[in-house]
């Protein structure tokens, strides 16, 4: 096999994300090397079990990437728990100390998109719910009245056993079409999705502008002039 036998990709380009680029390039390279060494036609080689890539090949690619110092972004808690050395730490809510103020001089600690227009704004206590242990505790001890759940998961499953007991939800991700949004709409629980938070902490008293209009799912989310419903710290 010579390099000339590897077909060109006339309109190809690099992948747009680092892990895809690294892995797919490594696989292409390994395939090319094995194909070249086989002396077979492509049609023979692709159907030859002895030339198939194996789990060991893929494990080596991951090792090679980690050896460069690269660490992966994490999504699921279980991934970080089982292999903490492979992943970056989870991000936390920051506090710039420079929050804008509302008309009454109270700090605006977040903005987001309403899933639906509720009948009224909701006041309550911000409770961060981002771990299995927190959910388990709330399942056993109950959810306090006036809980506004601050969730960093646009999926519906982490909080599903306790979701119906929240007075409001503020989700630091997703869109008004995410699974969590679908569920809060079904339960009639006011919800802000795609929330950007700054300076809100566990136990803060807040009011959330759920009575403002629902977000337009077709709007340009990058539009900086959007006037988004606010989460305001009241004490």
């Amino acid at each position, binding site marked *: 096999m010579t390099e000339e036998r590897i077909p060109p*990709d*006339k*309109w*190809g*380009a690099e*992948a*747009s*994300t*680092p*892990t*895809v680029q690294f*892995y*797919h390039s490594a*696989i*292409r390279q390994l*395939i090319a090397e094995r194909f070249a060494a086989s002396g077979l036609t*492509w*049609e023979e080689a*692709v*159907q030859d079990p002895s030339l*198939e890539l194996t*789990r060991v090949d*893929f494990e080596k690619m*991951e090792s090679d990437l980690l050896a460069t110092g690269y660490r*992966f*972004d*994490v*999504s*699921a*808690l*279980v*991934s970080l728990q*089982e292999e903490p050395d*492979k*992943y970056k730490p989870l991000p936390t809510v920051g506090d710039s100390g420079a929050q804008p103020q509302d008309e009454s001089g109270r700090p605006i600690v977040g903005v987001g998109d309403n899933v*639906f227009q509720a009948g009224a704004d909701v006041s309550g206590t911000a409770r961060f719910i981002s771990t*299995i242990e927190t959910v*388990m505790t709330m*399942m056993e001890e109950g959810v306090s009245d006036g809980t506004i759940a601050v969730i960093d*998961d*646009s*999926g*519906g*499953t*982490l909080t*599903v*056993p306790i*979701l*119906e007991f929240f007075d409001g939800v503020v989700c630091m*991700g997703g*869109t008004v*079409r*995410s*699974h969590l949004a679908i*569920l809060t709409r*079904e*339960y*009639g629980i006011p919800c802000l999705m795609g929330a950007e938070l700054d300076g809100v902490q566990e136990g803060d008293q807040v009011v959330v502008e759920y009575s403002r209009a*629902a977000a337009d*799912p077709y709007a340009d989310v990058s539009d900086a002039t959007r006037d988004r419903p606010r989460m305001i710290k009241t004490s």
Partner: protein
Amino acid sequence: MPTTHSYSDLLRTNAWIRKVSDSFYWQCTTRTVQESKLFPVNPYIALSYYNAWYRYPELLRKIDAAMPAEELGDRAREVSSYVNLLTTSLTSQFYLSARQFMLDMGMLRPTDALDDVMFVLDFCERLNLSYHRNHAHMLATDSNNRAQILPERTVQVLHADAIGTAPGDKLHTAALAFLSTASSYAFLKNAECRLGLHNSGPYRVGNGQEMLVRDFVDLAEGDLPWLDGVAAPIEHNNLSLPVIMKDTHFNIVDDWGSFEAEPQYDSANMVAVGLYTSDYLSDGYIPVHMESAAELADYLHHVREQMVSATAELWRTMASWNRDQMIDAGLLVYSSVPRDLAHFAGVYEQDDWFLIEERAQRFRPLHNDEYGNSAIAELVGLITLPSQQTNDYRMSKWAAEPAELFSTLPYSPLEDDEWTSGVGPIREGSSALPRKTAKYTTTRGKLTQDECNAAAQAFTPSYVEKGSRFLDDAWVKSHSDDGRADALYEATQQGSRVLAGKGAALRREDVQRLRS
């Protein structure tokens, strides 16, 4: 030697590839790429594609040999089951997603597995043509996002028997509580994906009102091994709620059975609701506790309580799983989207659908959370994989960029020998999850796998029987006074509180009058 497929076969297959490619792009970009703190969603999605690639050719051939795709579509159209808008479009899309990844990795060339690709896509196309027969489209997106799957006779029954309700009454409260709890349970038991939820319609029921059929499938002990025990008390595997809404236009019911409405969906606008069960062994929809509003409300409350308990127990189990188990659950939910077809055909085997082939398993080390997210994002949203790029002059349907989600088949195998046939027989499989042990919940009770298959093989629904199968609405239009039309309608009306024995002559206004 050149392929024996014809030029027209390849042209048709490529048109189907582009159709499902365009649909998948629109669905994925409007319904978001999902992440979850509980499940490693995108890693399991990406891995599921490989399981589809290596297993679908053999499994779909097995199904097609027992019952052709066209008949499967005819049967599935008349009930609410796991064969629905969502799964009938995803089967092609999951299979092609693996192909695209492996094209991108250089593991395949576009002319590889040609016979497999042609068969799988032909099967899916025939299934969709048949399933969508009543509106004569192939996907809901072809119909400007409408999914009017049912024939008039069935819509009339659902319309006629829907029980009136208003905000604050017992039935309204029970129905809304059921819908929210069933949605939650559906997301959880499907490892964070929406495959347990499904909507079809809308249907114009008069007075400016519209009816949407809201389906919840795989609720009880059945194919999903992790529902053994947890879901034992749930009597019905599939439940459908036709909901009639005032002041609501469902402007979108898409290829995933998701809906949007104008003005915004507001549950206070629900004015009537019904409840049915159905599956591959039922002769259409079977009413469930619909003799009165009070009876229906009590039953919806009862099922909701069962699902609340099942949700809590299942959540505790799932939260204790390790990453491999979580990935396996989601992967198998995804890669098994065609499995109910095997039930319809009477050839269902649990191990066909709930094991992960060794050639798919080998990819697991690549699938950390970031790669999973990135690979799915590039494949279905960004369309930035090198293999997806087309010539610089092109614009795709939605993005106006020179790239397409799925690559088509080259036509060169019509004249040269640079192509391969398929992936060969399914190899050994495995799973980190406990094996299924309980029976399967059906409309005929709880059955063993063998009993399910025997019952399916012996069953012919009234609407598929010889002499009935091809009597569609286009025929009824000019034969409503024909005895065969009456027989067909009366079979559908058999369990109807309002329409039993009324026959084929009724118009919508007649139904409206009878139900008031």
